């Protein structure tokens, strides 16, 4: 199967390598193998694979990662626009839960 890739050069993911201590939490929690371990520190290898879920930033003890996280969901963004709030989907069962 071809890999599914979304739009290029749009994600807001930033890594400050100076702050990184190489704990590898970002590598552990990332569902899309965005990070790699290079020279004892994390490195953004596949930026365009990032879906801005925010798991890496949330779990970085050093606060070295920043990303504007949210749902990549058109219906959620429309909902937010209509209600004047942040994008939020009303999903309750989507996402892969098991094989």
């Amino acid at each position, binding site marked *: 199967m071809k890999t599914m890739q979304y739009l290029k050069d749009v994600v807001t993911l930033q890594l400050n390598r100076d702050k990184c201590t190489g704990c590898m939490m970002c590598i552990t929690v990332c569902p*899309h*193998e965005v990070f790699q371990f290079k020279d004892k520190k994390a490195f953004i290898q596949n930026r365009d694979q990032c879906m801005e879920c925010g798991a890496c930033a949330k779990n970085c003890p050093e606060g070295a990662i920043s990303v504007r996280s949210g749902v*990549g969901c058109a219906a959620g963004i429309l909902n937010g626009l209509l209600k004047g709030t942040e994008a939020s989907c009303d999903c309750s*069962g989507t996402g892969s839960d*098991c094989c």
Partner: protein
Amino acid sequence: MNKKYIIGTVDTVVGTVNQISTLWSSSDLWSTIKVRWSTGRMNYSVKQGLYAIGTPNADSDIFVSANYKLSFDHLRRALHGMNAWVLVLDTKGINVWCAAGKKTFSTENIIKSIKNTSLEQIIKHRKIIVPQLGAPGVAAHEVKEKSGFSVIYGPVLACDIKPFIENGYKATPSMRKVNFTLKERAKLIPVDLMYGKYKLMIAIGVILILSGIDKTGFSFSRIIETGSFSVCSVLWAYIAGIVITPLMLPYTPFRAFALKGAIWGTVSTLVIKQFFNVSNLNFIALGFFSISIASFAAMNFTGSSTYTSLSGVKKEMKWSIPLQIAFAAIGIILFIISKLV
């Protein structure tokens, strides 16, 4: 809701804990099918708290889950044959990944649940296994700091839990990666199909009413004569966007979902035309209208997909929504003209 999954109780130092089955009953299976078809989704939850799998003791593993019953069902089935604890958080009946995004599957909620269930007294060790997809809502270092429990992130899929344990509580890169296989995409389609049903009915209603227009004004018999091509086109445009585009996702050119949908909307109209004898203008009008519908419907699958980002979807919507509105408007105008010439 029936609670057939509770099969007994297990005694602990702080009282009894409900013991749950690792097998799915026929009613579990039936409600899973129903929930996949979008009925009864809103009350599909499990009571928060601690549950026992087998006969766990103070050294057994603790698995954290959401209180969406489908998440809970997959977890307990994956733990078949083991002695373990399951800590269910109150996520308002929403699955782990979405709840983590909404911050109900969260650091605070884990800390609160650890306290409420007196976990410290029941269990000797200080480790909890949290599904990796819960990570957007959980800061492992804060859980450790505030509760004393270390978070070990488990695999993405519950069915990888046993290999994960055998691997020394380490998820391999493949266990950590979210895929989006044909089977996974197919499972999500029924819900999406039901989601847009009212919008679809409005689109069909509009096109049916417009079908009644002719040079002399409006007649119901014209609807019956000419409405079938229109209704078929709209219905298939919807299916092209919601069923065909997701199934063919990796094989369809372009990265933007709106464009993928537009391609399948075009194909669908071209195919439908073969079965009807319609004027070119009528066909072009329905083409514009159908592309708009298929594109919009496909764009909605960004929410179900496992790889789209908020920034990406916003960028896509910025140019695609005006185009979708324009295509729908051109389609309707051409359609009316085709009825009058």
